[in-house]
């Protein structure tokens, strides 16, 4: 392994706290792209440079550069968003982006298709409603997730508030964002900026954190670098089990890279959250691998040095004594759909949004419907970790109003979709994502049509199985912890992973490599049949496949790529 710092480290170090030459790049009228180095820095500002890959080869022949546009990700800590913020995002998406809103697997908003000349205005307008895009991407702590189910509202509110505090605490201190996008006061060359937590070169790699309240593991806490599992005792929040070292990304063909589920480090009190979190972050800052981006996530730091070493670092840096973890149990990592009433008597409706894409499609006028609901809503929206949307905190009267509007705009298909579809997720992939090797969002719905039919044939029409697809192995839709995981390898070809836990508590195992649609359907159909007849009471599909030896049980990220016979 090379000991030279990775190129991104050079760019960060020279960036004057994330400024680079972004201003010059925005001004250059000859290209719709940013300068190469700036494409790395823009991520810290929530902006990914992309191009329409459907057009790429055609435009090369036309002697035109790729159709560059930008994806803008707006942070929404805990996914909680006011109706005014929703309306603002809708307005910005309609006028500057491709007319749709994408809800992400990290409870953030994504807008796609914003061209460079509109970028600054778009960012400014997003900021009108106190939503920002800083640190939505990049080698920093990203959008902090929090759960969205409500049987114990007062605990959830506490947890959501903690998520917001952590988000604020770990937000980069650089003034570059305000300076570049919001015409904030220009500091001398960025030298005056100080990053008390991150330092001048930020983290070695992206960093993800989440809070969760059992029994629903909707945030997939084990997929996070840093997690806080709320421990509720006597209906009150006692504290959190701290988890560290989760992460999905890997590279095909490189077995030194692997998805990994987090370890439970210990228990801390609510007051200690920020100190523990900061200690985790600074340990990773100081010990994470800055020479190899594919080995830079916290999960590798922990696997290389050991959990005990890591715990010692955290305890020493935070001054917090971590207690033994407390017991908890998760029942699933999906969303709970439909109406729920919380302990304070308020109503919440979780609406299924296929793959998080808010758009009007034919009779189903999702974009328009949600806009109209936002206009009259006395409550709030919550973006769920499964790319769905909760319409939350409603009175009895509001519930009736919203119910009517869901019908009016034809957007309540929560009751029409099969359990498989309701437990599905896909990343964006083609045409905009530069990493995609295969289709995902545009393809999964039709694959589910076929799998629905196969499940119905097997007598499983009413059963929930989690299925997630990504167009590349980086794992934005967390496919390695879906009972059916599909990871793109090439056009129309996917690796099929099976045997993951329904609650996101166990990684899947490679079952078919490079499979096309026919091979995927042919592989799954007999498994549906044997599951249908051979399962134990309440046994989930993934558990069944492991118990019956169809796939081996993957017990640690390090053994993810192990040969079939290994444990």
């Amino acid at each position, binding site marked *: 392994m090379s000991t030279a710092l990775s190129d991104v480290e050079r760019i960060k170090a020279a960036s004057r706290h994330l400024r680079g030459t972004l201003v010059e790049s925005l001004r250059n*009228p000859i290209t719709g792209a940013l300068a190469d180095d700036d494409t790395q820095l823009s991520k810290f500002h929530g902006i990914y440079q992309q191009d329409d890959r459907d057009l790429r080869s055609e*435009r090369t022949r036309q*002697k*035109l550069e790729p159709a560059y546009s930008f994806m803008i990700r707006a942070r929404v800590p805990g996914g909680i968003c006011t109706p005014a913020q929703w309306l603002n995002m809708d307005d910005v998406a309609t006028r500057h982006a491709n007319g749709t809103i994408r809800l992400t697997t990290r409870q953030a908003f994504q807008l796609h298709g914003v*061209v460079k000349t509109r970028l600054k205005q778009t960012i400014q307008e997003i900021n009108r409603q106190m939503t920002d895009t800083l640190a939505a991407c990049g080698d920093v702590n990203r959008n902090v997730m929090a759960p969205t189910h409500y049987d114990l509202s007062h605990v959830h509110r506490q947890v959501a508030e903690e998520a917001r505090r952590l988000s604020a605490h770990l937000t980069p201190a650089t003034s570059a964002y305000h300076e570049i996008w919001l015409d904030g006061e220009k500091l001398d060359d960025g030298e005056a900026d100080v990053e008390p937590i991150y330092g001048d070169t930020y983290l070695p790699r992206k960093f993800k954190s989440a809070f969760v309240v059992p029994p629903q593991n909707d945030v997939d806490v084990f997929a996070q670098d840093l997690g806080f599992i709320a421990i509720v005792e006597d209906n009150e929040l006692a504290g959190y089990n701290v988890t560290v070292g989760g992460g999905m990304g890997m590279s095909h063909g490189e077995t030194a890279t692997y998805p990994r589920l987090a370890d439970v480090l210990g228990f801390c009190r609510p007051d200690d959250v920020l100190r523990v979190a900061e200690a985790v972050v600074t340990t990773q800052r100081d010990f994470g691998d800055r020479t190899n981006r594919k080995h830079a996530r916290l999960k590798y730091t922990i696997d290389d040095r050991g959990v005990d070493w890591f715990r010692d670092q955290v305890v020493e840096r935070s001054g917090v004594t971590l207690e033994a973890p407390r017991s908890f149990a998760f029942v699933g990592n999906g969303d709970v759909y439909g109406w729920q009433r919380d302990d304070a008597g308020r109503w919440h409706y979780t609406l299924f949004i296929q793959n998080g894409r808010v758009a009007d499609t034919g009779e189903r006028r999702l974009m328009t419907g949600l806009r109209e609901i936002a206009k009259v809503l006395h409550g709030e929206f919550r973006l769920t970790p499964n790319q769905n949307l909760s319409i939350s905190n409603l009175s009895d009267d509001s519930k009736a109003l919203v119910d009517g509007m869901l019908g009016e705009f034809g957007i309540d298909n929560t009751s029409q979709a099969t359990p498989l579809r309701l437990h599905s997720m896909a990343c964006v992939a083609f045409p905009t994502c530069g990493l995609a090797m295969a289709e995902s969002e545009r393809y999964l719905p039709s694959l589910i049509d076929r799998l629905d039919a196969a499940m119905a044939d097997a007598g499983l029409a009413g059963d929930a199985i989690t299925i997630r697809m990504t167009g590349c192995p980086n794992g934005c839709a967390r496919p390695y912890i879906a009972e059916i995981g599909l990871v793109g390898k090439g056009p129309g070809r996917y690796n099929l992973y099976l045997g993951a836990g329904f609650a996101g508590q166990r990684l899947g195992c490679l079952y078919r490599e490079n499979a096309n649609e026919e091979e995927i359907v042919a592989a799954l159909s007999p498994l549906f049949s044997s599951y249908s007849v051979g399962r134990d009471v309440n046994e989930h599909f993934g558990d069944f496949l492991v118990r019956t030896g169809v796939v081996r049980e993957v017990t640690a990220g390090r053994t993810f790529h192990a040969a079939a016979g290994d444990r």
Partner: protein
Amino acid sequence: MSASPESIPAYPLDDEQALRLHDALAGLTPGQLQWVSGYAAGVAAANAGIDAPVAPAGHADSAEALTILYGSQTGNGEQIANQLAAAAGDKGFAVTLKSLADYKPANLKRESMVTFVVSTHGEGDPPDDAELFREFLLSTKAPRLESLNFSVLALGDTSYLNFCQTGREFDARLAELGAKRLLPIVECDVDYEDAANAWAGSLLDALPAVIGAGNAAPKLRAVELPAKHDKNRPFAAEVLTNQKITGGASTKDVRHIELSLEGSGLRYEPGDALAVLVENPPALVAQLIDALGFDGASNVDVRGSSRSLRDALSLDLEITSTNLGFLQAWGAISGDERLQALLDDRQELRRLIDTWQVIDVVREFPADTDAQTFVNALRKLTPRSYSIASSLAANPDEVHLTVAAVRYEAFGSEHWGAASTHLADRLEAGDSVKVYVEPNTRFRLPANDATDVIMVGPGTGVAPFRAFVEERAERGAAGRNWLIFGDRNFSSDFLYQLEWQRHLKEGRLDRLDVAFSRDQARKVYVQDRIRESAHELFEWLDNGAHLYVCGDAQHMAGDVDAALIDVISSQRNVGRDSAEAQLKELRRAGRYQRDVY
């Protein structure tokens, strides 16, 4: 001169060569021998890489000489003037041949015979090189010219109003100043050859009455090596590439077309045009025949040769535009009073000529006539010229064009431009198209490679600048290159974007400014970029830069001119008149060249 073998010196020819020459010359008439001697001089000059004298120098006293002055935008006028000079020289007249740009107007009063070959552009504009002369002639400064004889050959295009305006102005004004009109003005449409040849013949016949045909025998002159391919002998070039270069969302379909010149011997310089012999859209030909109720297979006579009506309409006759001549003829044929009324209404006539095709006219004003009468009313189909978009040095044996396909909906049916759709829609790689090179000596890179160039080329006007930049790179020219490009939308209409980016990156292009008119609420054009960059642009000019403009003549060229005048006026801090004069001076000095159409 005698043709006897003894007169052939033994040296420098060897015996074998001397005998072969003797055989070759045997039996030639004196005239033929003179021609051969000129031919040999021409071959020698061409082989030595020096210019063969095309016409005798005007060393004769101007009072005894024929002075031929031309004003030409496309080079046609210059070509006619050249041919006339050669023919007059052959007849023994002393000839002075000059571009109007190089002629001192005050000299007119010392001349006894001047003939003008002058074209008209757009809606009645003089060619660039005639502008200053015209200004002088029409002004009160013009002297009385009682001792002057003159004749005018006017070139124009009847699809524009103010047909042959500049020629008409010259003709009328010279007469007004007391000069004697040797021949009535002859006005040529785009198919000018026949009329121009007839005019030259009449002129040569009339000349002895006003100037002496030199008392010596006709002078010997070198004969130019005939161009291998010209209008009458076009080269069938193979299409190598026909690639749309506007993006999917574009409102335009612009093609990059690459043709092979392999085996043609054709050469061209950056700035030259390629003439393309086109065929009319087959669908339009069929519709037209159908609309008139004719039989496409029936034979018609087209200027002396017989062919099917379908072929005549496809290959010989202009049907994708109208012109005054056709409208007048059709007015007579149809006897339609509405059409007659239109012919008297300048505004309406202009609109009609601009927007109607022949088929629209015959549909709107039906007539009961026969195919031959219809054919006689039509103008000859002329080759279409495109500014060449490639440098031959950078692309040996190839020529590239940038062609905007003209298609539009009008009168409830689809309309097509003849040449552009011939190239864009009906040719693919492997097909061939007939072409020849049209030199444009009025649009040339600076001879000095150290000179900077500023190129203003919106839309397909960027074509010659692709050739310029390629050529300067090939030459390793030290001068800086600045391109100002404009079009509708950045994402779909940035013609040759990847190439410009590469040129910029590799230092072959020093500066690129772009104006995309429809990307924002306020429309911006190349002239706005010129004004925004006034200071630097003026610095470049002050430093000796040459300035080039290519593209639309109707609006852009004038808008750019106005912007340049603003730049000079603001940067020099002088009034508008002075700035205009300075811009004209740049033009006269050949530092501001335009290829506008």
